[in-house]
């Protein structure tokens, strides 16, 4: 598989479906100093993610799943271990790996269109028209074409996350990192977004790492579900979900998977506040 790196020079090229990345995480540890002493957020975590794979990380809060996501994003550095994307070490943030956060990190000083354009403006070699075409394409993809002139505060929670998704997709990253993006939304909106996300993932062919504490959500979206246990943050088990797509969150087959995963989660769960080891 020969990959040619080049700068896109037209909207059409920019909109090409590009090859997704492969991620290799090896023996990554990370600790934080908190008020109550050091916390080992990640302890010798290793994980491989294949090109175009949809991987979900689940676990109780404090299990380090978000930390791992931030490390892959390049926003944080591991204390030890290596993280590689396509065989190259990740040294900092980069637009091949874009993040969608739980709270909409949309910029209130820009309207919807301006937010989607933000990342595109940082890509070289695109004309103004290219950028506009690309932004319009992604707004269409998330179903918000009618709202391109809207201000951020005028949108509902679900719409905000759609804009966030469009903004993260617009620079055409190889990897999409999602940090509990739907946690703050109501159930109905969430179900819609599960459908949309699976459709978009298929259409744009991305590697997705998706952090959640919602097991059903993980089983619905992921090819694989990686289960973490907290204090110290470790990968305990992983489950392959081989159901056909698009998946319905309410299907019985899915419930079978999520029950199994939940059981595993509970088996090594500790009461809140308990000190591990």
């Amino acid at each position, binding site marked *: 598989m020969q990959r040619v790196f080049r700068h896109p020079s037209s909207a059409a090229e920019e909109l090409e479906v590009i090859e997704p990345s492969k991620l290799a995480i090896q023996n990554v540890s990370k600790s934080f100093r908190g008020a109550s002493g050091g916390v080992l957020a990640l302890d010798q975590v290793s994980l491989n993610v294949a090109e175009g794979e949809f991987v979900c990380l689940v676990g109780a809060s404090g299990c380090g799943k978000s930390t791992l996501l931030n490390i892959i*994003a*390049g*926003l944080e550095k591991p204390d030890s271990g290596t993280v590689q994307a396509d065989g190259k070490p990740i040294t900092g*943030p*980069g*637009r091949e*790996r*874009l*993040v969608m*956060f739980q*709270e909409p*990190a949309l*910029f*209130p*000083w*820009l*309207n919807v269109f301006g937010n989607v354009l*933000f*990342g595109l403006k*940082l*890509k070289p070699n695109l004309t103004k028209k290219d950028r506009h075409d690309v932004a319009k394409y992604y707004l269409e993809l998330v179903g918000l074409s009618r709202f391109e002139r809207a*201000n*951020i*505060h*005028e949108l509902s929670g679900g719409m905000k996350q759609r804009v966030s998704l469009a*903004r993260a997709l617009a*620079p055409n990253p190889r990897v999409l990192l999602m940090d509990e993006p739907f946690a703050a939304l109501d159930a109905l909106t969430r179900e819609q977004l599960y459908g949309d996300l699976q459709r978009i993932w298929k259409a744009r062919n991305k590697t997705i790492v998706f952090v959640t504490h919602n097991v059903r959500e993980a089983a619905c979206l992921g090819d694989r579900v990686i289960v973490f246990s907290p204090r110290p943050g470790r990968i305990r088990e992983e489950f392959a979900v081989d159901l056909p797509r698009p998946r319905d969150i309410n299907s019985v087959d899915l419930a079978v998977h999520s029950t199994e995963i939940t059981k595993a989660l509970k088996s090594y769960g500790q009461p809140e506040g308990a000190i591990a080891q």
Partner: protein
Amino acid sequence: MKRFLLAALFFAVLLLIWEALFRAKFWSPVLLPSPKQVAVYLETAALDGTLAKAIIVTMRRLLIGYLIGFVVGLPLGLLTARWKVLQDTIGTLALGLQTLPSVCWVPLALLWFGQTEAAMLFVVVMGTLWSVVIATETGVRNVPPIYSRAALTMGSKRLHMWFKVILPAALPFIVSGMKQGWAFAWRSLMAAEIFVTILTGFGLGQLLHYGRELSAMEQVIGIMIVIVVIGLLADKIFFSPIEKFLHRRWGTSQA
């Protein structure tokens, strides 16, 4: 339209009360002229050009001083927000000096610069500068870290980050600092002009001062009205539209 009529009615009532007080000879007519006398003064001053000249002199001092204060204050505020050392030094200095009414600078300005335009400018700059520094610093410190994290992943850094993320995100704070700086500058300039006669230009404050010297209360009150109107206009023409834009974009409530 209804709101406008209501406001017009309110000011008409104010004028009537004033006129009534004048007719009742509550105070001596020397101390309280009638609205008509004030209007006549304003008309003659407008026609013979003294008013326009004074307004130009005052506004020039104000605008130049304000601009200097803003242009110096904004980067200073950004720097103090960025580096702890500067926060502890310049930031603390700014906080201290902001509590100092800027008219307190007038004696010093006179000693340093003499009776010159520079003295006036200095006072205005001191009125503006510290408010802008503090507001910018506070604004930058209050930018949610998630904005810069999101921008970082999209490839924004250094100057781009400052100009396209941090500054716009801090805009609501900066604008309120600009507004406060404007108010401080305006007040201190008036005080300075009343206090000191500068031969290079005869501003509104000086007109007011000489009105008092000549016991021409219609001049004093007339100039006060002009000062109020200028303040109102600055708000309506300059700050109001910016604030409206901020409210619309950010979705903060507006009365």
